[in-house]
């Protein structure tokens, strides 16, 4: 009974809590304002990825607004799909319903992209994804879907090429993490490796497996020359540790999902020597990128994560196109779609341009390697693998 009383007493406090938290936000400024929405996992299991991207976009918008020469205000609208296809339609609708939204960055994941892209298409609203890499998304005729990232085919092919030609591996274990991204990447790598005459063992280790030691044993028992892990750094970290414990001594390789400083933090010295591919140019060396990382850390008290820089680029590119249209008189959703399709933009991570299906045209893949405490740039795969 005591507790019931306490609960009773808690109600006024809860009301207070709502009042306190609800008082955030509020309208700001006047004049022209355009909204850029981001659709991705802002809650649920994959929230960290969504947060990486959201922060990148927010940073871009804040910086653009701070420059002061835009002549208009850019606002940010989050729409949350939890990374789930069934929530994606609702999320997309939310962006569409807000008439000031002129562009959407996302959907972040391929599954949600598949359900939402059609709705965006019918609303004439551009959906520019900086992370949905499943190859078939651009072949389904979604009218306003643009992909600002090379699809899995390019990266998987790059991995296969490097291992077959440069490492001269004879047996490769390809491990995916059972996500859209991992499976897509692993499929392509597997296919290309086989085409190059390399023996491939395909395995799957679902994300968030409680114990990676058995998975590591499964890899080493095949005695491969090389390993490709298609997944994100959260899982690559413990996996790398367990691989080292299991005595794996071949070439270990992973994709852009793992190409992140936090991989080293999670895996410790087990990450040493891992090869990481990425469609991005050297993210740590150039001054602009360094500044980005510094700004990001200052703003959000954490280091940029997977897709932070890509999303930043996407937002900057969109803002630039909005600016051009704005100067020409006004920004319409459909006009922005057309403008972006034709856009060429050099961002932090890569140069952006699209073909007529909305596919990213620049399919160069670069190679990095973990050395000590950092990820070092090696060069483009095509050059390295000859």
């Amino acid at each position, binding site marked *: 009974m005591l*507790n019931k009383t306490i609960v009773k007493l808690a109600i006024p406090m809860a009301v207070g809590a709502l009042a306190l938290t609800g008082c955030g936000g509020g309208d700001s400024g006047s004049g022209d304002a355009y909204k850029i929405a981001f659709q991705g996992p802002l809650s649920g299991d994959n929230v960290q990825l969504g947060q990486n991207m959201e922060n990148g976009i927010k940073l871009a918008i804040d910086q653009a607004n701070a420059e002061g020469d835009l002549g208009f205000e850019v606002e940010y609208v989050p729409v949350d799909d939890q990374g789930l296809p069934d929530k994606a339609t609702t999320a997309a609708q939310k962006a569409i319903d807000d008439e000031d939204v002129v562009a959407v960055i996302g959907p972040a994941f391929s599954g949600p992209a598949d359900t939402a892209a059609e709705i965006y298409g019918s609303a004439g609203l551009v959906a520019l994804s900086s992370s949905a890499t499943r190859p078939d998304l651009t072949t389904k005729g979604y009218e306003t879907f643009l992909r600002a990232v090379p699809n899995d085919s390019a990266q998987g092919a790059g991995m296969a090429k490097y291992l077959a030609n440069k490492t001269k591996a004879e047996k490769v274990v390809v491990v995916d993490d059972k996500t859209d991204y991992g499976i897509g990447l692993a499929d392509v790598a597997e296919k290309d490796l086989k085409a190059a005459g390399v023996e491939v063992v395909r395995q799957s280790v679902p994300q968030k497996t409680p*114990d990676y*030691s058995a998975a590591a044993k*499964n890899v080493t*028992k095949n005695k491969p020359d090389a390993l490709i892990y298609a997944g994100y750094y959260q899982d690559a970290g*413990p996996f790398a540790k367990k691989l080292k414990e299991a005595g794996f001594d071949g070439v270990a390789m992973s994709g852009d999902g793992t190409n992140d400083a936090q991989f080293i933090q*999670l895996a410790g010295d087990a990450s040493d020597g891992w090869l990481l591919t990425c469609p991005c140019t050297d993210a740590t060396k150039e001054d602009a990128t360094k500044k980005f990382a510094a700004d990001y850390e200052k703003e959000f008290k954490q280091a940029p994560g997977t897709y932070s820089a890509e999303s930043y680029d996407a937002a900057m590119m969109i803002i630039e196109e909005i600016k051009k249209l704005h100067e020409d008189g006004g920004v319409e959703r459909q006009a922005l779609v057309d403008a972006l399709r034709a856009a060429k933009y050099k961002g932090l991570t890569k140069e952006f341009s699209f073909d007529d299906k909305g596919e990213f045209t620049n399919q160069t893949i670069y190679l990095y390697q973990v050395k000590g405490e950092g990820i070092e740039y090696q060069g483009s795969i095509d050059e390295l693998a000859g």
Partner: protein
Amino acid sequence: MSLSEFWDFLVLGVVLGSLYAVIAIGYTLVYGVLQLLNFAHSEVFMFGGYGGLLALTALIPESTPSGVGSVAYVLIGMLAGAALGGAVAFGLERVAYRPLRRHRAPRLVFLITAIGASFFLYNLAGKLFGRNPLPMPSMYENKKVLSVFGAELTITQVLILVSAVAMMVGLDYVVNRTKMGSGIRAVAQDPEVASLMGVDIDKVVSRTFVLGGLLGGAAGFLFGTNSQVWYTMGFLPGITAFAAAVLGGIGNVRGAMLGGLVLGVVETMTVGLWGDDWRYVGAFVVLVLVLMVRPTGILGERVGRTA
């Protein structure tokens, strides 16, 4: 699967299983005294991981300690994990379960409260500590120290085995030999008679939760050391450990230990034979089959009797 691989996977399974066993004890203890499924125990486990992580992050120096230092840090981490786990379990009982017990609410209501508490706790942890996984600071050089049938064990794995066994033996002693244990057994057997005999049921229930929480928290720390710590880390091991408790015969402490080991070994063997994606299929198929044959688990549901 060759013989040496068999031993490799078996040993890995036993290590994982002993972790499951320790968590499963938390489920089974609470079930013993309240006949309810403490769904939020997985969050107790998760907070145990964070407890160890917080303490070690605050205390551990830049370079990896060695010798006595390592032992001390391991102990600190485990105690911190156990303490936070116990505290969360205590709070959980106070806030979420005690009022319902007063109402003699049906067990389904407890289940929903537990689910609510679970949502609340893991999201709170995510909010407080961020949602990225974190590794446990390294307390020692994780070398291989032991070889069993050709399967080599690292310090972490030995640590898990030794502490799990120690905790299980300790718990068995507490439940069977101490006054507190006899209170738990009395309540498990028949709360009404126990209260007539002068047992303060509230106190016993609270202590049972804390006891389960201490073990769950320590297990969380060990799990984090073996893998990493993140805010939803409790979910899958929680479900598996719950299955283990049921498999062994829920309410039966030794059953929970056995069930944990069995599920750990089955899971790892499944991974060895068919790959990691079938891990839980193997575990649950075994669970269902065992329950078909023995509807109250391997050792049977002997609440509090042999406890």
